């Protein structure tokens, strides 16, 4: 234990300062609680800033036929009906209020001609639904909430004389453990990245809002922070991870030059009319419309092109299928030898829109390709290919309160929570997810604290947490974290990636276990002062648990659905729709078991055409017609 252990006390600690964390913090503070926000980076740098396309909410500004029921249906379809129905329902119902609320806090979305919030088309959404600001919507969300936090601090200053009296951001602080006493959450333990000094924050409620796991994979759109910290912290605290086999490979990441491989190319490019072609110039997506979506997508380029002008009388272009479908299609084209020189396909918006319009609607894409790849997207096509983008799986939570199942006092919201998106997330549903469930996590924590007071942390618990931090400095002769991380990324990418098979997954599980064993002896060069090698040692630990959860869940699911494609079981199987995989940690390894999916109630069941449900459900389920 370090001599100068800093001890802090709060009502709620929020781990993560992205969209979900900040929204939870606003809610918790407005409920009268003392709140600490902890983040690994500087305040305002969270991965949410990279969200480009928009936030989905059925405000009906662009098409008045839109409403929460249409949004709910699209979300369930996108997730291939593996979603927790209640999360999808809450999300669809509450998203519009969450967007309008941002406007009250100063956000400036793009406008329709009537002066309302503009909404754009996106894959899987029946109507134009994404509130947006050019292609930098995530930045607008983060900045608006960052400034809302400052506004709350200014109000506290006026009232209490100290801006940070009740709401403080602890930036560049890594959490290494969630602490429990008497079976309930008691606080968190971690270290300052700047100097390695350790910190204990006692708090009876902890909200995990740490985002995703992309850095487990070699090609990813995620920033360095996406190392699955919250997933691993929750597992080790006794919570469950649900649906970890489902990873979203975004169909369009940059592929060239190598140093930018994986960087996201927003789906808005397709929403604005971009088309995908192979090296023969064929618009190949027409060959990949799956049966379940057959009647909803155009079958000829002519109809697809007409849709941009007249959406009521034409069907959508297949470029706007859900992401899992498009990613698999691109993968197949490249494997069949119809890819570009650098292993991607072409995405071209230059023939659809004039240069000025492209620069206005897709400014950061223009910028990104021009400056990093030397490509002018107003004149020539982009080269794109799949990139690991989002994890659908995450902490198993109660939908209404965001409370983690099995750990009193623990909450999770945003990408780190599981269930909302089923087997595949629709674009635009992430920004709205983090607003809806970030708020609910803040409310859930406030409600929990009404009947649960402080829960002091014992010295023994502190010592155990401190010993873990010291370990990499005590180890002698071990490997460095960078090389182990690279090895893990290769294994995850090659064996647990976009296309999987049973034998490769078996191989992956063995290799991940072996890397994990070697990681116990990781040795760090230098001292504790802002030492990235030391920081990576902890991130690596988290990524290994995530990879193990994913591989072990994936090997059990013998079908293909959404973000889980098995070469040895290529079909979707309606029996598997009734099952979630639940990963837990027994102290030495991850254990995965099957659990029945929550059955959809009658009033939501009835929102669908029965023939559509027949494509996803067993005849017995359809006959039952929902619960109650």
């Amino acid at each position, binding site marked *: 234990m370090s001599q100068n252990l800093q001890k802090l006390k709060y009502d709620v600690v929020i781990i993560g300062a992205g969209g979900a964390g900040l929204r939870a913090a606003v809610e918790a503070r407005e409920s009268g609680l003392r709140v600490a926000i902890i983040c690994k980076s500087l305040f305002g740098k969270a991965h949410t800033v990279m969200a480009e396309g928009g936030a989905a909410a059925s405000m009906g500004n662009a098409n008045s036929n839109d409403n929460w029921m249409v949004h709910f249906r699209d979300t369930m379809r996108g997730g291939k009906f593996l979603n927790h129905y209640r999360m999808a329902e809450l999300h669809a119902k509450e998203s519009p*209020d969450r967007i309008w609320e941002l406007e009250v806090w100063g956000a400036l979305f793009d406008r329709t001609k009537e002066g*309302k919030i503009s909404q754009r088309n996106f894959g899987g959404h029946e109507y134009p639904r994404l509130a947006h600001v050019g292609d930098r919507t995530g930045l607008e969300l983060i900045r608006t909430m960052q400034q809302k936090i400052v506004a709350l601090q200014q109000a506290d200053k006026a009232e209490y004389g100290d801006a940070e009296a009740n709401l403080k951001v602890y930036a560049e602080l890594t959490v290494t453990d969630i602490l429990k006493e008497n079976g309930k959450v008691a606080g968190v333990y971690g270290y300052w990245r700047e100097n390695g000094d350790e910190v204990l924050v006692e708090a009876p409620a902890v909200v995990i809002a740490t985002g995703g796991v992309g850095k487990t994979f070699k090609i990813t759109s995620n920033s360095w922070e996406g190392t699955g910290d919250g997933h691993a912290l929750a597992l080790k605290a006794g919570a469950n991870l649900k649906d970890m086999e489902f990873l979203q490979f975004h169909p369009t990441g940059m592929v060239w030059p190598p140093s930018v491989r994986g960087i996201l190319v927003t789906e808005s490019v397709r929403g604005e009319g971009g088309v995908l072609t192979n090296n023969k110039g064929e618009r190949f997506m027409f060959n990949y419309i799956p049966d379940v979506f057959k009647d909803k997508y155009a079958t000829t380029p002519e109809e697809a092109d007409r849709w941009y002008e007249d959406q009521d009388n034409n069907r959508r272009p297949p470029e706007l299928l859900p992401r899992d479908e498009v990613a698999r299609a691109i993968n197949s084209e490249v494997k069949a030898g119809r890819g570009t020189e650098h292993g991607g396909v072409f995405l071209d918006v230059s023939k659809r829109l004039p240069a000025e319009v492209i620069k206005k609607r897709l400014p950061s894409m223009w910028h*990104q390709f021009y*400056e990093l790849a030397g490509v002018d997207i107003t004149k020539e096509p982009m080269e794109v290919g799949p990139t690991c983008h989002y994890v659908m799986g995450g902490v198993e939570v109660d939908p209404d309160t965001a409370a983690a199942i099995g750990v009193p006092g623990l909450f999770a919201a945003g990408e780190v929570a599981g269930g909302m998106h089923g087997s595949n997330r629709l674009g635009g549903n992430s920004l709205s997810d983090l607003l809806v469930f970030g708020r609910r996590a803040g409310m859930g924590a406030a409600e929990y604290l009404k009947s649960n007071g402080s829960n002091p942390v014992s010295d023994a618990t502190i010592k155990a947490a401190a010993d873990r931090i010291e370990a990499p400095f005590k180890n002698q002769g071990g490997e460095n974290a960078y090389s182990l991380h690279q090895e893990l990324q290769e294994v995850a990418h090659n064996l647990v990636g976009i296309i999987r098979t049973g034998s490769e997954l078996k191989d992956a599980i063995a290799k991940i276990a072996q890397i994990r064993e070697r990681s116990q002896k990781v040795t760090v060069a230098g001292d504790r002062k802002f030492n990235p*090698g030391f920081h990576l040692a902890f991130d690596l630990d988290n990524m290994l648990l995530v990879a193990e959860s994913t591989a072990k869940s994936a090997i059990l699911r013998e079908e293909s659905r959404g973000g889980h494609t098995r070469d040895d079981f290529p079909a979707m199987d309606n029996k598997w729709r009734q099952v979630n995989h639940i990963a837990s940690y027994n102290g030495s390894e991850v254990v995965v078991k099957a659990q029945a999916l929550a059955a959809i109630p009658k009033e939501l069941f009835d929102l669908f055409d029965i023939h559509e449900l027949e494509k996803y459900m067993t005849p017995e389920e359809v006959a039952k017609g929902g619960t109650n």
Partner: protein
Amino acid sequence: MARKLNLRIWRGDATDGGLKDVVVDVNEGEVVLDVIHRVQATQMGDLAVRWNCKAGKCGSCSMEINGKPRLACMTQVASFDEDETITVTPLRAFPIIKDLVTDVSFNYKKAMEIPAYSHPKDLAPGEARMEQVDVERSQEFRKCIECFLCQDTCHVIRDHEENKPSFAGPRFFIRIAELDMHPLDTLKNRKRTAQEEHGLGMCNITKCCTEVCPEHIKITDNAIIPMKERVVDIKYDPARMFSGLLRREKRS
């Protein structure tokens, strides 16, 4: 394909430090941040550098490259001559923590001093109506990724530590301008407080901030100069001066 690059990196902390030379592999299309990462993974495991998105969207990897404030993730190695040594040093306007990482807390303190957006009290959520052309003026400033390169390059604080308490810097002048031009903001006197409380008057419009902005925001032309002009109008309008005088007398 790989070639060798001579990289000179500032290493040290607040007490001591200096430039260290390394030779590192560089591949086609790589940016300066790529080669720094390679040095970190292969030669200097504890080399401190901030970064997040590596796509020019988060503004974390700000540093000085051959003396110029830049984002390392958006600076192509190929933009320098092949035999040129690339020198990377920490932002000069802020205290050093370690190697390429500086203490930028100054900026977060200044952010807290700018009065927040104030929404019209009678305008319910969802009722706001704004013209696209009107939101675009503020949207330009909301593109800011808070890399603080403008703060770093601004000579008012770069060479004059003593000015820091009274000077918010270009990043926060565009924040004030953004709120001032926000079609719905109800707080009055933003321009006047920019001048009186946040040091707008200390800026002598050399446009260095605009030059280094990776988002190409026209900080000086579109934010600072229009505010300065309006401040002059407000402060030196004889009629306003007279009525202001009366009001002040009434208060005392």
